[in-house]
């Protein structure tokens, strides 16, 4: 459990005031919401860069009380904005060390921290380069590294992957997962991407035009049509953790964590023994009440029990417990008629069937 963050702020957003109040002590808290709702402003207010009123506390530190705000330099945060904001007059190494004074003051060995961060983010070869020559993904990694090297007590990540294409996004997500595993620093992570939020967050806050709309576990919230009416539930993806056990140029097999169920996916280039998440879209999952055996072209047929059925705008989302693997649910999106005809309800045994091509692997 991380230090609790208590937020009860009123953000001034041009023509209106957005009240935002929630408490979290999750290692990674996701902030999700439509564009322009004020997610970035919230991060800037947490950083002390945007005037706000209300109260804001982190652990036992008071960052904002009424109109009185603690200056940004005393909050010890690491801010990673969408466009990286690298200092153009400094090279990569100097950018990474821009917050060295604070890191030293907070008891870090800056050289050790720098080498740990450059190894983790694989930016060692970039150290002597000018920031002008970096690609988008490299800029993001340097920005992440600069925040980490400043010895922060809280990381604020603003849609760090929004400006990148999907291959680069997966890479950044991989680095974020590493940071999450390697550093004991809580993070607030603003994202539009449900897959990233599920992969990274323990707690999710959904922001709407009137403030906090919902807060809870990302997997539950992202599947809830009442919380996200703008998002079709057919886009919902289940994310299951596992380890790659076989990889060649035709296919890749992943054994799910906490069980012996295996999933076949298309070749991914992820090496054997590597940990990965497999993303399976709910609309690509077929349910059968009997084992179709060898008459099926689909590569994956997992034994499961229906745990819960939730209505969506266009049908039902069926949440399944896998029999051969514990842990996160797998969800299937079915029409209302299909649920009725198969007589599905909690406790019913089914086969969850999906093609190898319906799966996307996300390295961890």
């Amino acid at each position: 459990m991380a230090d609790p963050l208590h937020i009860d702020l009123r953000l001034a957003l041009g023509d209106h005031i957005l009240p935002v109040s929630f408490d979290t002590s999750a290692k990674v808290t996701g902030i999700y919401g439509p564009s322009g709702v004020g997610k970035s402003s919230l991060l800037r207010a947490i950083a002390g860069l945007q005037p706000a009123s209300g109260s804001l506390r982190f652990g036992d530190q008071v960052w904002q009380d009424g109109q009185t705000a603690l200056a940004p330099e005393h909050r010890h945060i690491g801010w990673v904005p969408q466009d990286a904001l690298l200092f153009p007059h400094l090279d990569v190494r100097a950018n990474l060390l821009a917050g060295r004074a604070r890191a030293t003051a907070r008891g870090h060995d800056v050289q050790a921290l720098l080498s740990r961060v450059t190894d983790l983010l694989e930016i060692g070869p970039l150290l002597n380069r000018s920031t002008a020559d970096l690609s988008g993904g490299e800029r993001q990694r340097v920005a992440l590294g600069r925040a980490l090297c400043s010895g922060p007590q809280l990381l604020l990540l603003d849609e760090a992957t929004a400006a990148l294409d999907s291959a680069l996004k997966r890479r950044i997500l991989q680095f974020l997962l590493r940071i999450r595993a390697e550093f004991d620093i809580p993070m607030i992570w603003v994202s539009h991407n449900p897959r990233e939020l599920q992969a990274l967050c323990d707690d999710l806050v959904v922001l709407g035009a009137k403030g906090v709309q919902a807060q809870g576990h990302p997997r539950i919230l992202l599947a809830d049509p009442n919380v996200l009416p703008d998002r079709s539930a057919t886009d919902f993806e289940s994310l299951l953790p596992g380890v790659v056990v076989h990889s060649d140029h035709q296919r890749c097999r992943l054994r799910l964590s906490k069980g012996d169920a295996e999933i076949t996916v298309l070749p991914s280039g992820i090496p054997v023994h590597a940990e990965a998440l497999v993303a399976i879209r709910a609309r690509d999952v077929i349910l059968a009440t009997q084992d179709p055996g060898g008459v099926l072209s689909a590569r994956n047929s997992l034994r499961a029990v229906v745990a819960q059925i939730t209505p969506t705008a266009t049908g039902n989302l069926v949440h399944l417990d896998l029999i051969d693997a514990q842990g996160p649910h797998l969800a299937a999106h079915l029409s209302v008629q299909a649920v009725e005809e198969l007589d599905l309800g909690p406790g019913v045994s089914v086969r969850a069937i999906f093609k190898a091509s319906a799966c996307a692997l996300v390295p961890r």
Partner: protein
Amino acid sequence: MAGLATFLVMIPSAILAYVLARHRFPGRRILSTMLSLPLVLPPTAVGYLLLQLLSIDSPVGQLLNALHVRILLTWRGAVLAAMVIAMPLVVRTASVAFQGVDPRLEAMDRTLGHTRFQTLRRVTIPLASRGLISAAILGFTRAVGEFGATVTLAGNIPGQTQTLASAIFSAQSAGQDTEAWVLLGFSLLVGIVAVYTSERLSDTERAHG
């Protein structure tokens, strides 16, 4: 002398330019207008205004007299005149330079644990440095060429209050053509170097931006 004037004028000008570029406050437009006045008034008018302000009859003049600081008809007067005349140009150029610095970069530096002043030194001034050097060069050329206000305030005393401009005027009036030509050559040299450097700086700035 022009160098000293430039040096003395840079610091207050840079502060004023930063304030004008970064802050919105009541009276900002009035301050901005006042600062630009020496640019549009005839230099002799500015000189006369300063003369009246500093004359022995005025409170400022009496104070200076009490402190035994002589400004009128001394090199100090020439420096003061050059400063006042150069200031608007310096403030305007420096202000543009500060406006070109992304405030979000300054915000980023604050989050890395730096105070407002540390950020000014670490981010704002380095990023505005080209424009600030440009401002100093323009201020210097303006100070070198100052005539009207200097003559009014400090006179035209060779080796003491004479600027390049007043020296050329003297040489030409006295019919010393050779000296006038040398001084003209020197002005050309200073002018060409200053404008060329200033243009190069703004070109590289554009290439970077």
